[in-house]
């Protein structure tokens, strides 16, 4: 089953240049899609459109068969009514490059508050979910700490736990290790590897090529707002055919 389907997505900002130029993609349940490409190619914008942080110019976004947004024949973009969007909102989670934890909440409250406020879970249930996830992230001893007292890697693990707590069907990652010191990226990549092993459906924008090759079922190479090449990691990363892909990947060889 497709958890996410994007059809003919277009997006421009105030300037006339289109940042996303007719992109379509599908993400099947349990699959991991890796998105790679040079900076400025529109990867973040694609995730932001998919998670409805940006409105789109045209196209369709469908979560589990339900339209979040569609475009009628004369080009009018129609978003689903608020109540339906709210339901769809619960299907996905997003992990940001710079974590965006709530600095005034303790680690555990960062995780329990959305559960209590948004999902109306009881306090006990919320704490049980949060403690389980913190344990899984190796952060059980940090539940009372505040984000400012944690390393970047620890903060990112909290933010992943916060996203997972809401039990999303699909999790987006926008360069989850780019804000981290190189020695801290490994711990985050391992967390994501473990999630992949549990068949969590994920879309991951990353510059970590060997990680993408290991973890992804499908790789999308984007450049200049279009999908230039896609396929299995074997095809796209090991044996790229398009010259833009080849040029991009050659920068990562060491």
């Amino acid at each position, binding site marked *: 089953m497709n958890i996410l389907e994007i059809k003919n997505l277009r997006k421009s900002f105030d300037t006339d240049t289109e940042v996303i130029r007719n992109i379509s993609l599908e993400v099947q349940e349990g699959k991991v899609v890796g998105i790679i490409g040079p900076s400025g190619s529109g990867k973040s914008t694609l995730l932001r459109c998919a998670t409805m942080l940006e409105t789109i110019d045209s196209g369709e976004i469908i979560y589990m068969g339900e339209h979040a947004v569609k475009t009628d024949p004369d080009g009018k973009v129609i978003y689903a009514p608020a109540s339906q969007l709210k339901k769809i909102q619960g299907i996905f989670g997003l992990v*940001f490059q710079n974590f965006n934890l709530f600095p005034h909440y303790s680690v555990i409250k960062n995780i329990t508050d959305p559960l209590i406020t948004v999902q109306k879970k009881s306090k006990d249930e919320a704490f049980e979910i949060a403690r389980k996830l913190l344990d899984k992230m190796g952060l059980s001893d940090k539940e009372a700490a505040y984000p400012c007292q944690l390393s970047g890697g620890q903060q990112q693990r909290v933010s992943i736990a916060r996203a997972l707590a809401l039990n999303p069907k699909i999790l987006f990652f926008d360069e989850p290790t780019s804000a981290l010191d190189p020695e801290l990226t490994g711990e985050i990549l391992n967390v994501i590897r473990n999630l992949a092993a549990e068949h969590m459906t994920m879309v991951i924008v990353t510059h970590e090529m060997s990680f993408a090759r290991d973890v992804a079922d499908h790789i999308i190479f984007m450049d200049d707002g279009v999908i230039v090449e896609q396929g299995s990691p074997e095809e796209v990363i090991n044996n790229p055919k398009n010259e833009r892909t080849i040029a991009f990947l050659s920068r990562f060889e060491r």
Partner: protein
Amino acid sequence: MELSVMLSILLKGMWISVNIFTLTLLFSLPLGLIVAFGRMSGNFVLRNIVKIYISIMRGTPLVLQLMVVYFGPYFIFGMELSSNYRYTAVIIGFVINYAAYFAEIYRGGIESIPVGQYEAAKILGYSKTQTFMKIILPQVIKRILPAVTNEIITLIKDTSLAYVISIPEMFSEAKAIASSQKSVMPYVAAGVFYYIFNYIVATTMEWIEKKFSYYKIS
């Protein structure tokens, strides 16, 4: 005049000063937030009306504003108001003036919160109101506390301006006694009282700031 008589007159005046101070904060702190929302509104007309209001409040002397609020209804509209209106006038004058200053402080605080906080809240499913009340406002309060403290301390001293519409607050009383007794003592005593008032308020604000220091904003 005996010292105890003088002090009791001054303390009565101080009670009025404290009342002006308290009522002004009580109304202007929340009103400032509403004004700040108007100032940041997407509605062009509303935004600009609020902008002009703020600029007048900050661009003209508070003494003048108090006189306009007090004398305005009579001289502009010919309204006959009882002399008790002066107490209402002084509160209105202080509240609309301080709300303008607080609004600008709130606006600065709200605009300084990184957009990522709103985005994280939205992705997690918080409503707009929940986002503002639970995620944004607490961080705004922490950020603006030092600026608010400054304004509050200025307000203590500004309460003495109420003398222009003959409110018998502490400064008016000190002035009256000083001229009738040909003595500088009432001013010295009033100064000491103002200082103590300030000290209490500053200490309280420091304590509140400390309560918010359990975390740092990135």
